[in-house]
């Protein structure tokens, strides 16, 4: 048989056997298209992604940082339900940047994320609790603030500036301050609970299996220390051993959840007893179907005084937008709006008087008199921090048995 070579040129596809010849052409296109896609996708991603350089952290070049034109986006890493959505919207309308929020349940989690990311986390603002700032700064996680770009700092009540853990407000400015206590369901716990010892007792009795504690190491060990008149910033091994012993053996089996924001579950009736920060407790009570079943108790005889702050992490890309937001929130009008939503004292001058004159709901969960404030002790990050985190992990593991 004769084979004519030119009849069998490579350009002519072999139409063989099946109608899938059509599929052959489709297949080739799809295959090549796929290969191009993955290559092109990679290229596109590379082009679109990289921004212009890192951000300088040296103090000498701060004079113009934050004063430039605001960027289009702002990524905030903060606590949950910690900003009034209306304020977020009005900021975008007034100044431009679109805000994205991510949340964490404890400072340890936020720090772990920043340390792991080494500046690539993508966050422009973080909200650390004051006592963690010295270590964060020492480990190169935070940028120094340019006060020239924050004119509204003048509105802050001076007693909330210049804190011992951030002298001169080099890295942070106050967002709000608050305290720790607990709420309980009066219909389920018939007696009156007034202090941390009552909390521990009720947790092991009436509220066994329906108790929530904060998902933050220091606050949990704090319950033991405050109830037993021990300085909750202690570094003594005996104290820590006693705390671990009691919490892991006596409290852990009765815990239903480690929840830093019990307000949501409260509204669903999940807990009978919950340790909570005052603002979150307030939100939980206000959002319940029947607010009157809940009783808030300020931690006694001693409890925590914490102050949350705005700070800008190293590696932030939208620095001008970050400054714009912080300045925006330090405006008295916006600050009041924040306060009414989150239920924490924002620390601006005269904010308490203004809020009360506007009939803010449940003011005694927001504002505290000097007698109460004297029972609140600020926290410190000591060398016992690692031990406290270990106790917390053991607690979680034991509670899960």
């Amino acid at each position, binding site marked *: 048989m004769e084979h004519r070579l030119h009849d069998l040129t490579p350009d002519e596809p*072999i139409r063989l056997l099946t109608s899938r*010849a059509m599929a052959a052409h489709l297949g080739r296109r799809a*295959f090549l298209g796929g290969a191009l*896609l993955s290559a092109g996708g990679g290229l596109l991603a590379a082009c*679109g*992604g990289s921004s212009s350089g890192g951000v300088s952290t040296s103090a000498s070049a701060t004079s113009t940082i934050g004063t430039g034109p605001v960027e289009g986006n702002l990524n905030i890493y903060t606590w949950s339900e910690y900003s009034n959505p209306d304020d977020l919207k009005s900021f975008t309308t007034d100044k431009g940047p679109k805000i*994205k929020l991510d949340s964490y349940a404890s400072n340890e989690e936020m720090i772990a994320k920043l340390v792991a990311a080494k500046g*690539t986390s*993508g966050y422009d603002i973080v909200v650390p609790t004051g006592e963690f700032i010295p270590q964060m700064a020492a480990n190169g996680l935070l940028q120094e603030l340019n006060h020239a770009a924050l004119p509204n700092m003048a509105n802050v009540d001076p007693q909330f500036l210049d804190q011992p853990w951030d002298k001169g407000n080099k890295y942070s400015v106050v967002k709000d301050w608050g305290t720790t206590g607990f709420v309980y369901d009066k219909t389920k716990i018939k007696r009156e609970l007034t202090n941390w010892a009552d909390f521990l007792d009720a947790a092991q009795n009436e509220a066994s299996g329906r108790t929530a504690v904060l998902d933050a190491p220091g606050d949990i060990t704090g319950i033991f220390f405050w109830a037993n008149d021990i300085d909750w910033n202690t570094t003594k091994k005996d104290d820590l051993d006693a705390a671990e012993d009691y919490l892991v053996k006596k409290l852990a089996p009765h815990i239903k959840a480690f929840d830093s924001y019990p307000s*949501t579950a409260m509204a669903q009736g999940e807990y009978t007893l919950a340790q909570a920060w005052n603002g979150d407790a307030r939100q939980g009570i206000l959002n319940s179907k029947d607010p009157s079943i809940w009783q808030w108790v300020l931690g006694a005889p001693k409890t925590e005084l914490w102050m949350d702050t705005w700070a800008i992490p190293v590696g932030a890309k939208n620095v001008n937008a970050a400054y714009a937001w912080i300045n925006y929130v330090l405006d008295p009008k916006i600050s009041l709006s924040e306060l009414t939503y989150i239920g924490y004292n924002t620390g601006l001058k005269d904010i308490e008087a203004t809020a009360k004159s506007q009939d803010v709901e449940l003011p005694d969960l927001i504002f505290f008199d000097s007698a109460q404030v004297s029972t609140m002790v600020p926290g410190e990050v000591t060398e016992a921090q690692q031990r406290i985190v270990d106790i917390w992990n053991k607690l979680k593991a034991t509670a899960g048995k």
Partner: protein
Amino acid sequence: MNHRRRPDLLDLALRVWGVLCFAFLFLPILFIVIYSFNVGRLMVAWDHFGLDSYRIAVQDQAIRSAIGVSVRAAIGASAVATVLGTLAGVALARRGGRWVPLFVGLLGLTLVTPEIVDAVSLLPWFVWLGADAHVSIFNHGLVRLIVGHSLFASSVVTFIVRARVAGLEESLEEAAADLYAVPWRRFVDITLPLMMPAVLAGALMAFTLSLDNTIISAFVQVSGSTPWPVYVLSALRSALRPQIAAVSTLMLLLTLVALGLVALVLRRSGESSTQIAEAIAGV
């Protein structure tokens, strides 16, 4: 002769079991769909019926962004996994060799390693590559997601394609060879169309796996490129709103449409439902 018995007690019991299983499988989905019509502050607490959550979901910028990131990452991951997996599947099926057990072992390892281990290992790796080794492309959120999602998916696609290609008779390709088709043409005109159902099934699997991927995404994502499951995970921390159920219902519809399309294509090319199931189960 027809050997069928009259349905008896055992058959009835099995049928009841089947119906119960279907009810079990669909129960949570039904509740999600129903609660997507909940107008209230919390998703789990029914307030009253309405379409508000859909409206809010569509308008919410964070939700739109999360979906957008998820879809883009899924397309990218699917493309990468399909290309890698198809090539590898063909190599495994057609070309044997001493390397095969090793390679299959590596693929198997990918499938067997818990996702949490992948997640906690990828983040330091990406950070090292991006920050210390200055390969800055790995600081980009979408790139991280695509790479992270493509690992498991590549292995799945490889096995699917291998199973399919191994089942193809070589006689077609040999016939093409006899007719002087060069290897490249043989591959493109014969092998590729014949294994197209498997490739499509693999691509769909990779797409779905990427959309669904939660743990790796939660660890490696860069703020600003937050995919949908991570958005839901962080909403879990604070408050679950009905919008989430609304978006989930919409995505379910989308997935159903995609599933239907692929089934249609596979049916057209002559696959039986069993073969489709085989392809999808990767068995």
